[in-house]
């Protein structure tokens, strides 16, 4: 509404000004005063428009420190992953709460456990809000990460964390949808191959829509404050 007002006055006021000037014909000495009044009025209206715009638009815009929110959540296509509990994990499981999805693998000694340990700290920092957020560890290394072992690994950090993986075809399809990528990189031995993977945390809203991304370097306090804000906004 605010934006509409701004546009209306910017576009319409010059025509009003010209119309008045022509109508008056030879009475030119009055035109500057009239046009000045119109210009002032227009300026005032534009100002009101801008202020109204700020007031109207601000409450619906959530600014986060740790990443970027999409202007409109993007729909996620149906998918089926293998949960560590032996049950399929599908799009329906994303509904009704916010989700923070982290892409990694358990043979990653450095960044994955560090990030999971940090998410554990974030979960703790969220207090009561944590009940409305699910943390999901998605392994993109199904060759080595069986759902069961992945569950044991993930639940070491928090029993509430969800651990999922899937064959590569499903991982690729979901990746195209959620915007993550991964790649197998040969290691020193065939067993010690490495996985390059997207580093961002993927935010999914309670309607199972892709809401945005949280990007490293992650700061626990900022993550807690952003997630609290999102949960409060959607309540």
């Amino acid at each position: 509404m605010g934006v509409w007002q701004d546009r209306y006055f910017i576009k319409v006021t010059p025509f009003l000004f010209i119309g008045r000037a022509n109508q008056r014909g030879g009475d030119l000495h009055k035109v500057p005063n009239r046009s000045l009044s119109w210009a002032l009025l227009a300026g005032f209206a534009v100002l009101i428009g801008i202020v109204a715009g700020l007031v109207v638009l601000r409450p619906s815009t959530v600014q986060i420190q740790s990443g970027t929110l999409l202007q409109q959540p993007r729909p996620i296509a149906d998918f089926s992953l293998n949960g560590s509990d032996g049950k399929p994990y599908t799009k329906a499981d994303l509904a009704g709460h916010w989700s923070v999805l982290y892409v990694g693998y358990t043979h990653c000694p450095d960044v994955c456990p560090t990030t999971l340990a940090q998410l554990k700290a974030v979960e703790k920092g969220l207090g009561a809000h944590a009940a409305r957020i699910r943390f999901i560890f998605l392994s993109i290394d199904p060759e080595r990460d069986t759902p069961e072992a992945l569950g044991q690994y993930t639940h070491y950090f928090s029993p509430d964390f969800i651990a999922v993986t899937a064959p590569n075809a499903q991982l690729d399809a979901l990746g195209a949808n959620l915007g993550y990528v991964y790649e197998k990189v040969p290691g020193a031995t065939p067993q010690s191959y490495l996985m390059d993977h997207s580093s961002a945390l993927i935010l999914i809203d309670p309607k199972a829509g892709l809401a945005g991304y949280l990007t490293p370097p992650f700061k626990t306090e900022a993550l807690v404050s952003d997630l609290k804000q999102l949960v409060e906004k959607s309540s």
Partner: protein
Amino acid sequence: MRFPRSAAALLLAGAVSTPVLADCKGLKIDKAWIPEAPPVAQVLAGYARLSNDSDQPLHIDAVDGADFGSVEMHQMSMAGGMMQMRPLTGLDVPAHGSTILADGGKHLMLMNPKHPFKAGDRSLLGFHCGKDVSHTPFTVRVQP
């Protein structure tokens, strides 16, 4: 007669190639720790500060430990939003300088632990500089 010849050899070695010590003399390792990982973890990380108080740069060409199937040296980096891990062929420690093994950078990848580790456990790792080896205990700690 013997002294000038060895001095000349040293000078020659210095002039022809980058002098890297073939032993671990001058190598000091501290802040050596292993973040506690899930008991099922097949890979642990090793972090430390490697210092060299000698006048020559040091090159570590291998690391091993009796508690692990193998130990690799890795470099973690971020490129275009991707976490990338690459094996390193060795670690260089400059003369009178240090090399940090830390989260998000160069680190040790301790593979196939022979038993689970928990906070407080210690594991001895050997840093090989040519034919020489320097052993350092790493302590397992819960990640802060």
